[in-house]
């Protein structure tokens, strides 16, 4: 009978709820892709701006700041309960995760409502001029991400409501969902600067 030497891995953990998990890496690269899309939209904005003497075009003054700033703050604050939910999930605290996700979702819904109101108040549409086109596209792309984030979080929340399901796979879901949330909030900081501050300064 022939034998072969062996490297036994049976004592290694059989999952990982942190940055070593495959799905965490997958999520990171998906966000790199999404980030590249946003970066290209920013480049498009400045390319269009470059060729126009007046920016924004006549009749579309730089959009007012107050409510967008408030709304930005709402989104940024929503990151706090989501971070809390993440930490709770990593430590196996299901109730903590649920509380964090519910608070985060509530704030995200407020943000979406604010987004809708602010958007509706814009004095131009996507077909008024190229400026309108890029502003609507940036808003639309980001809003799609917000909605996707909302739906994803609802699904994760429903899954972990059942205590029997709160095992590693779903805990990891909370962690990677939190990563996506960070991206949605962080990218809006940059896009906010683009849409609201850049036309005033540049």
């Amino acid at each position, binding site marked *: 009978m022939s034998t072969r030497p062996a490297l036994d891995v049976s004592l290694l953990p059989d999952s990982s709820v942190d940055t070593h998990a495959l799905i965490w890496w997958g999520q990171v*690269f998906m966000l790199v892709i999404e980030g590249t899309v946003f970066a290209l939209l920013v480049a498009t904005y400045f390319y269009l701006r470059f060729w126009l003497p007046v920016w924004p*075009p006549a009749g579309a003054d730089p959009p007012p700041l107050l409510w967008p700033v408030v709304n930005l703050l709402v989104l940024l604050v929503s990151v706090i309960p989501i971070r809390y939910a993440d930490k709770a999930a990593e430590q196996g605290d299901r109730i903590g995760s649920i509380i964090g996700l519910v608070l985060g979702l509530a704030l995200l819904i407020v943000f979406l409502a604010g987004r809708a109101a602010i958007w509706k108040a814009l004095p131009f549409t*996507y077909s008024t001029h190229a400026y309108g086109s890029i502003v609507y596209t940036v808003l639309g792309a980001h809003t799609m991400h917000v909605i996707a984030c909302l739906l994803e979080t609802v699904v994760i929340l429903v899954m972990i409501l059942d205590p029997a399901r709160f095992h590693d796979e779903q805990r990891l879901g909370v962690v990677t969902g939190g990563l996506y949330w960070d991206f949605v909030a962080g990218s809006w900081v940059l896009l906010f600067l683009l849409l609201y501050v850049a036309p005033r300064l540049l």
Partner: protein
Amino acid sequence: MSAERPHITDEDALRETAALREVWAEPTGIVGFFSNVSHTAIGLRYVVTALVFFLLGGIEALLMRIQLARPENRFLGPDQYNQIFTVHGSTMMFLFAVPVMEGMAVYLIPLMVGTRNVAFPRLNAFGYYMFLCGGLMVYAFFFINAGPDAGWFAYTPLSGPQYSPGKRVDVWAQMITFTEVSALAVATELIVTILKMRAPGMSLNRMPLYVWSMLVQSFMVIFAMPAVIVCTTLLILDRLVGTHFFNPAEGGDPLLWQHLFWFFGHPEVYLIFIPALGFVSTIVGTFSRRRVFGYMPLVLSLVATAFLGFGLWVHHMFATGIPQLGESYFTAASMMIAIPSGVQIFCWLGTLWTGRLRFKTPLLFVLGFVAIFVIGGLSGVMLASVPIDLQVHDTFFVVAHFHYVLIGGAVFPLFGAFFFWFPKATGRMMDDRLGRVTFWLLFVGFNLTFFPMHQLGLRGMPRRVYTYPAEMGWGPLNLLATVGAFVMAVAVVLFLVNAAMSLRAGVVAGRDPWAGETLEWSIPSPTPEYGFLFLPTVSGRSAMWDARPDQPVVTGLRNDRREILVTNTVEATPHHREVLPGPTIWPFASAVTLCALLVASIFSPRAVPWLVLPVGISLLGWFWPRGKPPVPAPEEHRVRARPPRLSADTP
């Protein structure tokens, strides 16, 4: 001797085989066919589907060559010709070249890094079906005479709402979305597979060169493909809902299209070509019977090519009136590409020079690659210079150049790779004598077809004209090119005949017919559904050649579920075990519903909110956790290493 260390015996291997065969079994039946998530099955489907599109694209090329064979030919009308050259280019780039490279990698990468599947098997299946849907869609429209007709790079304003009414360009733009989603899916899963699932011992500096090339290529995909998604989306918005991105009357700019498109389009060329460089390094090493000379320079050249590839896009736009400083910068950047390319050619020549060559078909294709690619590179350096570029812009000189780099740089190595890995996928060798004939026909046919095009371009023949007057004197060279195209067609048919015959009656290959260097040659051919019986370990840069007689294997993975080993990114030391998902119909359902949504959006944006629902349901079905939460492993569900015995035992 191995009994002095933790070890396994033949009996363990038998047990493991039976258990793995059951747990990794590929589903059967029609539903099973569309549920399969095995990387070998999906990889082969990618390759076969891409080859079917290659044949379709080739037939379109022949139609164009027949039309151009003599002046004032009436074989095709101008509208047909426009559709055919557009679909030919789009097919070859988006439905053949990129997917076939992805498919080869989906098949080979898990085997080369020593694991059992890609990191995200369901995403992999989803990506394949997206690609398939995109291809079927564009051909469905093409066959009802509604194929895209604005060229494979669809410049605005020609492709805009004003000059291309109808749905043709929308079909093209959606097809791009489909194939890009597919490429991005594969890129993500390959990066994670390569970085996190390598066999213990395969640190980054021991990765096979092909794995390096796919890692670099996948990063390029991730940064390049979003640009084409953005620009086709903006184009569709301009066309369907009336935005003004490319409309100068309302503050838009048609040149924006060219910037966005070529920011993707130039890297696109390299992300077809870089996997081919991986094939070349593998084949050169194996058939020179030595390690490839200059591992580090080769890896650095790949990385350098990828970086430079993102800084060249404006050299496609020299004729658009960009500032002279820009022209100079992009000329210099374009010429710099010659440096890493030269380094690589030098390393391969050094390997061949000092090796003991075996002149089998794969090596012939690689040698053909070197010859053709050098010619294509030289015309590339010429085109990088602005005055020459302006002179021959949009002429057949450009057509000659990019066919030399793409067919020479990608298709020749790819055919070499087919001959090389055919035994691994099918268990049988392809016929070597027929292979040589195929190579020579393809090589001669290729040069007959495309070399005269340099001359035609220099004499001023523009590309994309459906015919030309006799007095231009372009007739004889065009006829020569047409003859060459048919010689190439014969070569491709011969290749298919060879593959079909070998599949049934080829010489049985065994595990390792070429004395190969990488891990895929350590397992039976065709690849079993579970890949490796015990995951391998690696103790050198050439996994097979450096393996010690008692190279250890990995044990202790559970065999009642699809467990794999996750290792650390740089050193590939074992970190934890993870379970890969099994077969499911939902990725297929998601791709089909998403396809319906995207096609419907061309015709009626109002349908979109309704069609979001089935997509959402399929995605939920995909992600909803099924079955019981995991339970701790009962001991009978794994083969563990037996404890060491005292050496007195050994006979």
